[in-house]
Structure formats: structure tokens, C-alpha cells
């Protein structure tokens, strides 16, 4: 560590842990308790879960709409550009002409955007893009949530800075609850990524007189394209 005061924080740590132990009536660090804790966290025990219907896709769509996302089902990834173009057309009267330009994640770079009359570039957003197109790692049926995991190919701000966020959700990636999402991350990514952003609908605030307003800081609207 460099020579600022942060370097001598060790003593504060030791004193705090000593106070915790004395409050708990312990004298020394408890090696057995530590071993138990380490074993305990590998079990991933679930708490009580609400019952989920067999059709997770339907449940996801219903809950996503409850959270003010709009949802559209499409057959294949190649339908994405046309679906987005159509979505922007329907928005136009509401927001006075949405530019048909935006940014997307690299996995969608090769879609035929220009055929749909869109100008979409594959790069992370820098803050002034009005449309952000992302995928998602998986989606959660229980709450209508999409799960974004950070990574080189998944720049997270693309989901939260633009006015409009369109997320592509592959139907087979819809899982029951948060527990399944965490298990999938462990299975497929190993280490926890820097950020898991669990997003359920557009940004909202109720801070003035508890009146709900969408688009507090992040997207005003979230449109989900469920594929397959």
C-alpha cells in the first residue's frame, strides 16, 4: 500500500474484530466456526420459495409487464432489427421522433440493421446514445427481471444510460428465481463477475409525494424481445 493513512488500517480491523468477539463472549478467533462457515457457504441452501408455474416464459412476461417493461415475442434473433425498428415507430408519437440510431453489444454487431433502416453501432455507450441494445445473461420468471453480468463483451452501462433500453432475452435462458440465476453464474462463469445488474423494468422514483415517475436516472422505457 502507498504511504497514506489507509496503510495503517490493520489495527482498526483487529480492534473491531476483538470487540465483536468480546460482545459474543469469545476470546479468540474460532477456527471451528470458520471451517463451518466456509463449508456452509458451499451448500447454497434455499429459503422458502413461492410456487412457480410450469410455464416460466409466460410468468416472466407477465411479471416484466407488471414492472412496466414492454414485451414482444419474436421467432429468431434475425428478427431483432425489424422488431426494434417497428418498436421505435410505435414510440415516435409518444416521444416526438426517436432517432433510429443507437449502440449494441458485440454479439449483435452482425445483424442486418441497415435493412431495417436502423443505424446501430457495436460499442459501449459513452453517455449520449439514446438507444442501447443488449442481451442478458439470463432472466428471472419470478419477478420479470433480466440479469446482466459485466464483462468485456457485455458493457453494462449500455443497459442503463440510454433513454431506451432494448434487451434480447432468449427464452431458454429464463430461470425460475434468483437462486437459479446465481447457480447458473457459478456454473458458467466460475468467479462472480464485477457486476450483476438485476434489472426489472425502467428506472423509477416515488420520492416526490410518492408519485411514481419513470426514467428517474436510467432508461425511461425497457423493451424486451423474447426470442424462441
Amino acid at each position, binding site marked *: 500500500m502507498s504511504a*497514506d*493513512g*489507509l496503510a495503517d*488500517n490493520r489495527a*482498526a*480491523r483487529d480492534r*473491531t*474484530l476483538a*470487540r*465483536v*468477539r468480546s*460482545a*459474543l463472549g*469469545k476470546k479468540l*478467533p*474460532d477456527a471451528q466456526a*470458520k471451517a463451518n*462457515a466456509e463449508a*456452509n*457457504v458451499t451448500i447454497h*441452501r434455499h*429459503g*422458502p420459495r*413461492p*410456487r412457480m408455474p410450469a410455464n416460466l416464459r409466460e410468468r416472466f412476461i407477465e411479471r416484466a409487464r*407488471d414492472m412496466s417493461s414492454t414485451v414482444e415475442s419474436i421467432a429468431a434473433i434475425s428478427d431483432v432489427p425489424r422488431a426494434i425498428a417497428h418498436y421505435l415507430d410505435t414510440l415516435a408519437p409518444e416521444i416526438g421522433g426517436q432517432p433510429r440510431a443507437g449502440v449494441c453489444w458485440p454479439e449483435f454487431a452482425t445483424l442486418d440493421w441497415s435493412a431495417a433502416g436502423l443505424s446501430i453501432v457495436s460499442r459501449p455507450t459513452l*453517455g449520449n446514445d439514446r438507444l442501447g441494445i443488449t442481451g442478458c445473461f439470463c432472466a428471472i420468471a419470478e*419477478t420479470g*427481471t433480466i440479469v446482466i453480468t*459485466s464483462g*468485456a463483451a457485455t*458493457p*453494462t*452501462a449500455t443497459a*442503463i444510460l440510454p433513454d431506451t433500453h432494448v434487451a434480447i432475452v432468449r427464452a431458454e435462458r429464463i430461470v425460475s428465481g434468483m*437462486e437459479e440465476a*446465481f447457480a447458473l453464474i457459478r456454473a458458467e462463469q466460475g468467479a*462472480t*463477475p*464485477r*457486476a*450483476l*445488474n*438485476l434489472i*426489472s423494468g425502467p*428506472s*423509477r*422514483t*416515488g*420520492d*416526490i*409525494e*410518492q*408519485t411514481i*415517475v419513470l*426514467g*428517474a*436516472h*436510467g*432508461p425511461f422505457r425497457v423493451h424486451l424481445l423474447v426470442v424462441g
Partner: protein
Amino acid sequence: MQIASMHFKARAHANLNDEQLQTNLKKFQGKFVPARRNALVELDDVEATREAARQIRQRALDELDTWLELFEENATASGATVLWAETPGDINRLVLEIAARHRVKKIIKSKSMVSEESALDHAIEAAGLTVVETDLGEYILQINNYEPPSHIIGPALHKSKEEVATLFSNTHKTPWKDEIQALCLEARSVLRQHYLSADMGITGGNFFVAETGSVVVVTNEGNATLTTTLPKVHVAISGIEKIVPTLEDVATLMRLLPRSATGQSISNYVDVLTGPKGAGEFHGAEHMYFILVDAGRTAVLGSEVREALRCIRCGACMNHCPVYQNVGGHSYGWVYPGPIGSILTPMYVGLENALDLPQASTFCNQCGVVCPVKIPLPDLQRKLREEEFARHLRPWHERAALRVWAWFALRPRLYGLASKISVRLLRLLARPNGMISRLPFAAGWTDERDMPAPAGRTFRELYRERASVRQS
């Protein structure tokens, strides 16, 4: 934050007579309670979920040192730096040292109640740096000369839209508008510039996850998501008690937190943040710090009110509290209002500095019934009342009155006679509507409330009658 909890009575009195505040308080009362009820029924077994939540939080506290060590190991392994603040002053010092290390000039903050304990914003400004609160409610309070928050999840709910409108037009030099949507839009555009230009983001932490060394931050506005995505440094500040063992525990607690708070099935943004950004990642902080705060927590852990540390700050106890609903959050005079505040404030700032708070309860137990982690709030308030009595912190007339009562209570015959007589006397004081609006020697009590005159006979009379009916 300045401690004004000694003046609970005076502030409550003033707030009860503040017409504007009373109108504003009335507006939000009706909403939280039914919203919570409707959201909870979605869980198939609410009580089992509450019990699981209680156990998760209690398990974390019972082995707090172990979980903290595990958290520290995992957070460090992910590349984050874990720092410890023993006092509120330490929080501010550490933040400023981190800022100096990374040559930070502008800091954006998403809501952190712990940083209110240390008045962090003032310390940052005193050091010549800029700090901007991004939670809309906190932002409103910041530009109103750091008005204290009145609620833990809706810090500015005591303000009307007209009050916000005036504040905005004065601060932003924009035309006055009182349409809520337009006000939010104005704040959005002001704050957007700050997000894009800040070098450090500070968040609180709803949970620290021992398993992964992560912090979980929950918002509806998405301000914490932006705060942890755009600036190059992220500092997460929260109390040491906020540890939970696993991500699955977070899943269970998240079934209750938003439902208990605002009646939502889920908050719009739940962010799990672990370490600095990885290779090739474009967005995200390059440096991540945790500040784990004691500032009185270990003292609570060793006390009779340790269960208060299970709190997940949902606000349900205050939303359901008849005292809070009437006097408003500012009366409590420090960071945490309502039933949980009436326990934490005396513990963190000293019982002698918050004498009235454990008394600010009717013991109706609405709070205990709604608390998602089953904190027996009235029991804990009673324990603090006992301590006040034992430490001779109650006024002499109250102690004397209790002595007199105890003397009678130990003499059942005399007690029966005395209560019979007082019941009859009380009835004489009643107005025609059956209410007593003034009591000799108890003006402090009847000033703000009417008391129904006792009807019928005393409990002892009725009980005796019941017993004789049984025997016959």
C-alpha cells in the same frame, strides 16, 4: 449528523402543530400499508419466509467475527480493498484518504444512511471537494441546505411538490413548475452531468455477502447502478452487521425487503458488486473499496437490544407506527426515525442524549408484527426504558409515581380499592362524549391526546365476577 434527539418532545409538539407538515404526512400514510399487505400475499408462506429471514440475519450476527473475516478474504481476493471504521470520524477520514490517493475532485453518492451518521458530505465539502447526492430524495434535501432525512427509504416524503418546485427553481435557476414529472426530468438532466463527470462513486450497502465478498445495493432509481458503473473509484460504506452468508440468503431477504418497504415484488435495480473491473471491461470502477463501520454496532451486539442489528432498513416499522405517522421523522432528531430509530439512536448516540425515544411508543406492536426479520421492537424499547430507570435517567416525578404505583401494586386489597376510586374519579372528568381532555398532573400527556374515560367496572371486579360464575 447533529443530534437533536434530546428535544423529541418539543419537536414532536411543533411538528404536530405544523399544518403543512401534517398535510404532507397524511398524503403518504395511506399508501405504504396496503401496498405492503398486497405484495406479501404473493409469497405462498409469508411467515416461513420471515422466519427464514430472521434466521439468516441472526446466524450472521451469532458468528459475526467469522463472517466478517470470510467476507474480507473473499473481497480482497477479488481485488477490492477492505477498510474498517471504528468511529463515524473514521469513515470521513478514510473516504478523504481514498479520494486523495486517486486525485478525486467530484464524488457522486447514492443513498447511504451510515454516511449520515458521520455527516460525510460536510466533511467532503470541508476538504474542498464536490459531492452530489443522486437519490432524488437525498438530492432534494442536499440542495435545501442539507435538511435531515425524515424516512429511511423516502427521505424527502415530508415535502410537498410545491416545496420541491420552489427549491428547484431557486437552485437550478429555472422557471417554477409543480408538475412532478417535470421536476423529476429537471433533476435527471442536472444529475446526468454529474454522473458523467464524477471520479468517485459512494454507495451504501444493503448487504455484504461473505461467500463472494460482494456488496448488494438496491434502488428503484438506478442511481446506485450508475454510481458504481461510471466513476473510476467505488467506495461502499455500511455497518459491519450488514453481513449475510450467501447469495441465496440475499434471494430470500430480497423477497421481503422491497415488499416490506414499498410493496414492490422486486426493486427495479438490484446490483451485486464484486471487486474492480476485469480485463477488457469498458464500464465499471477500476478501484473498489469497502468501509466496514462499527461506530457503536459492537456495543449493540454486546447489549440486551442486540436483535436490533438484524434490521434490513425496510422502513415498515415506521410506516406502521402511529407515533411516527403523527409526529414525522424529524422529531426523532437523528438519522434513524420510527421504532427502529427509537432503539438505534439511543444506542449509537447515548441513552442520555435520547431519553424520550424509548418512550415514544404506545407498545401497540404494529412494528413488531410487520418487521420482516421479526425484531421484537416493543420489547427492546421496554429494555431501554428499564435501563433509563435503573440509571436514574427518568425525571423525579415519574420515578416517584412509579414508586407509589409499586407500593399499591404490592398490596392487592388497597390496589383494588384505589383503582375503583380512581376509575370513578376519571369518569367525573369526562366530557359528554366520554373523552377526557385534561388530567391533573398529566398535562404533558393530555396536551396532545384525549383519553377515553373508563367505562363499566374495573378488571378486578369483572374477574371476580367471572370466577364466582365459574364456581357456581
